[in-house]
């Protein structure tokens, strides 16, 4: 049961039970607020009856030419609301906005190479591993760049996997 709406600043004061999750990063204020100021349509929160925060997704749209794409920066669900396909709903929403409103070619995201549950979930949602990014996380752990093509990328060119891994310096965007 989900009311999905745009994330607002006051939600920052209520998302502790979601962010206590050890894999959910609590960023600094300028990070959240830059996303809110620039891409408010890519920052959504799911609310349960009674107003508790179930989870949220934050992302952005960027790139040029055929690299114009939606990006999932974070998606997280409170432990109480897991195993209900909420992350899927939030992801679908972001994909929809990238596809229909911003006419992007694909959506991408980065995930820790060790985070198997997340990788499996993204695969179920139609994402493929596009490339491996060496030591992406704090210079230690590798990241996987996963992508899902949108309707504008008719030939699904954007998701043809790269043969070799890349380093963080080679990434086109931060």
């Amino acid at each position, binding site marked *: *049961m*989900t*009311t*999905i*709406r*745009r994330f*607002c*600043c*006051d939600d*920052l*004061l*209520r998302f*502790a*039970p979601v*962010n*206590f*999750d*050890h*894999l959910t990063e*609590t*960023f*600094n*204020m*300028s990070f*959240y*607020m*830059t996303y*809110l*100021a*620039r891409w*408010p349509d890519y920052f959504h929160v799911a*609310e*349960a*009856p*009674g107003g*508790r925060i*179930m989870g949220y997704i934050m992302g952005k749209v960027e790139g040029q030419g055929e690299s114009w794409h939606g990006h999932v920066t974070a998606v997280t669900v409170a*432990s*109480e*609301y*897991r195993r*209900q*396909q*909420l992350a899927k709903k939030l992801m679908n929403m972001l994909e929809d*906005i990238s596809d*229909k*409103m911003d006419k992007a070619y694909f959506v991408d995201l980065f995930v820790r190479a060790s*985070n*198997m*549950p*997340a990788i499996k979930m993204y695969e179920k949602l139609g994402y493929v591993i596009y490339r491996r990014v060496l030591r992406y996380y704090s210079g230690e752990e590798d990241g996987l760049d996963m992508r899902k093509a949108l309707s504008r990328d008719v030939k699904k060119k954007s998701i043809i996997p790269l043969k070799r891994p890349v380093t963080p310096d080679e990434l086109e965007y931060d």
Partner: protein
Amino acid sequence: MASKYGLAGGIPERRVRPIWDAIDSRQYKNALKLCVGLLAKHPNSPYALALKALILERMGKPDEAMSVCLNAKDLLYSSTAVHVDDLTLSTLQIVFQRLDRLDLATSCYEHACAKYPNNLEIMMGLFNCYVREYSYVKQQQIAIKMYKIVGEERFLLWAVCSIQLQAISSNGGDKLLPLAEGLLKKHIASHSLHEPEALHIYISILEQQGKYETALEVISGNLGSLIGIEVDKLRIQGRLLARARDFAAGAEKFQRVLELCSDDWDAFLNYLGCLLEDDINWSKASVTDQIKLSNSVDFQNCKLSTLTEEVFNFRLSTALSFVQNLQMKGYNDCVRCPYLATIEIERRRRLNGKADDFKLMEVLLNYFNRFGHLSCFTSDVESSLHILTSDERNELLEAFGKSSESSSTISTKAIGSAITIFKIQELFDCASCFPVTDLETIAMKMVDMYCKSLYLSRELDPQENMHGEELLSTVCNVLVHLFWRTRCLSYLLVAILVLEFGSNIRRYVWQYKILLLHLYSHFGALPLSYEWYGTLDVKNILLETVSHHILPQMLRSPLWSETADLLKEYIKFMDDYFNEAADLTFLAYRHRNYSKVIEFVQFKERLQHSYQYLMARMDASILQMKQKTDKLEDVEFILENVKHGLQFLELSNEAELKLLAFNEDFQTRPWWSPTSSINYLLETFEEGTAHRREQKHQVDMRECVARKAIEWKSLLPRLVYLSIQVASSFLKENIELNGSVSDIDYTSEFKCLLERYARNLGLSFEDATEAIVGISEGKKSFKEYDLEMVHLINFAVFVNAFNLCTHHLEPGVGHQQSSWHIVNSLVEKCISEELMHAQPIFTSPGNNLPILVDLVTESISWHILVIQSCLRSMIPSGKKKKKPSATDQLNLPQLQPVHASIQCLTNSIQDVQTWLEGQVNKPEDESLDTLLSHLQSGDTEQGPYQICRILEETATESNPELGERISGALQCWNSANVIRKLVAAQHRSVTEFHCMCASKLRLLESFKQLI
């Protein structure tokens, strides 16, 4: 910044680039060298000077940076020949901002705007300056100017937002909003609108004026196409229709939303609200609610419907058949809204007194059968459960029980349903009525279930939640309840063991961490609480919302270094945010997300008025003072930094207190401590039960208590300052402070603050004085006053200092010496009373260590400062040691009371010290054995023993079904180690406090050497 090259002030880019490169790579010395070279060639370039200032500021030379900046500014102003561009201005702006002189940056831009009236770039820079200064009127004026020059929609919206902000901050919406509406209307007529956000702002302005029909016309017309997502448009239309009281049309819109998004609970509530024509709470719908694009209509929930019974029933039937239709569409089990909707419909029916009581129970049971295994079941139905009678609650639990029993063996679903039943029992506070043995059985059953279900999680990744994880939190709640009821220590110890056991298997369960944090804190093992708090990785905005789990306890502990770190990190986070908040607002302007502009400004204000932030700033200074009481000069220096205590009095004025924002998130606190000022475990079971029922009331009361606490705390530094000042003139005939200020000024202020302090305690000055005199003479006791002792003793300390300067005696106080005597007597009585009841910390959770810490580190410390100040005034400056020639001089009769006070404080602290020594010197193994004996001895049939047995058996039996990871974790389990860590943490707390007392004794001894 390096990307902003170009011809700046006529300087070629190739000359500037290396300087920016050096700055970007933090090679400031090199940058400065290059910049000096640049200035040699372009001595009159404001840009080169601005660069130099920027480098100097980064090098930590603010004064030099300011001076260079001012030179650049003078150049900009003086010479008409000097080229001015945005790069120069923005570089200067950066430095001025970092030097906290936004006004100078603004005036540079204002000057440049006057010089180049139509330069859009500079005008935007000036707009940004006004955003930083929160000057909404000036923002509006410059935005209108830009709009007039280029006619762009965005500048008009900048102006409109500035008008909105004025309306919000001044409550002057009546005149301002029509102005904003007029501007937009005119623009739309000639240019239409092109940004969805512009449309949202337009609608919000109409809505704030109650012009719902106009807003509906706008959104349903051509402009409506700007809203790209159909359901978003429907939601806005539904909201506007409901607000315009066109309920039938509103219901239709929300029905459409539900057809498209069948799980949208908010849409269902709005749909039902429209059908039942619920009253709409207009006045409470804040401007931000509307601007945030909220879809909620704010129906005054659950008010008696004004519809006739027939219409009411018909409408509910309509709703029911609609949601049943949604159910028939056969969504998967992840769509709960159409099912929960049937419960809500029955709830409404009952609230209107038109209930078929059986029906509500039936739909609840249906919902349980379908979703009872989900972790969120209880919170989904919570509001409906609250309206059940006690008999119905029992009946429902029984029905749930039967339903879940029928579902075969252990499976993830069965565990989920069982957990739900335990959680509902908790919600109904069943523990208060169940016999102890029943509760023990429930706890054992849950632990057993947890252990037996471990194998279900064997395939799970350690990152994933395990099945049945919640069982242990619920067991802990039951065990803590049992401890509360019986005061039997073993329950508390087992609660800790159970959670540690779970954390040992999967260390990421934050619910366990928070419970452990509070349990250890109650057990006097604050270092361990702090450690668990650390594992929560609380940072950034979480510092504002969840520091309450640890900060209040730390502030009353001897762990000063950790407490100072917590305060420092929190204050730094807040200050950093305030510094960048306006720039982030400007970012929203630039990206045309106008609704965010308003939201950002209001959010910044909310944080700026944060209760915790205000408290933390005061606490940080007070903590510094406590840490430095050994050296009067250091305390004076700390006070000087807070305007001799006046800063906090200004911050806590009445207007500020009205605006206070309480941002703490209490939903994760344990049941026994719903707010930081409540701990039921410190009360007896019966008392606490009564309180628990009024939990919400307690949370509301907290804000009242918090305001008082702020006022009380804000008085402290100033009172300490005044006490030090007047004490320094103790022996002088004609008191002259600092050579210029007469004591008369201090006297009236001092008296006034003492009156406020007394009022804050709920007493008049006279009554408070009477209280301290009465207690000191043994005619009254501390218990007669429902006050913290430390507050009353602080009052006595300050009254004593006040008496030193007034040289006249307050009515009832007796003569001058007696005010010293009052302090001595109160300290003595209080400490001896506390020590009389003091139990060893190792075996007495919730002991009085915090009270003793408060007494020694606050009341006694403030009094020591008064004594130090007296002594300093008698010893020529710079004289550290007593010289023979000074002996006679210092052997004055007036010193007798000071001497007596020193002796009294020494005796009292020595008593505390002796009590502490008994514990500090006790071998840790001995304490460990004592605690372990609570788990090992006694009736083996009893719950605590049985639970320990289940844990130990699970840990030792090798069960191949559990998989490698879980088995490995179980092998590492050692309950004695857990208790050993607990004892070590308790020991550290006591040792730290012991050191503090020793340091105070050394100080007092040094005073004795002087007189």
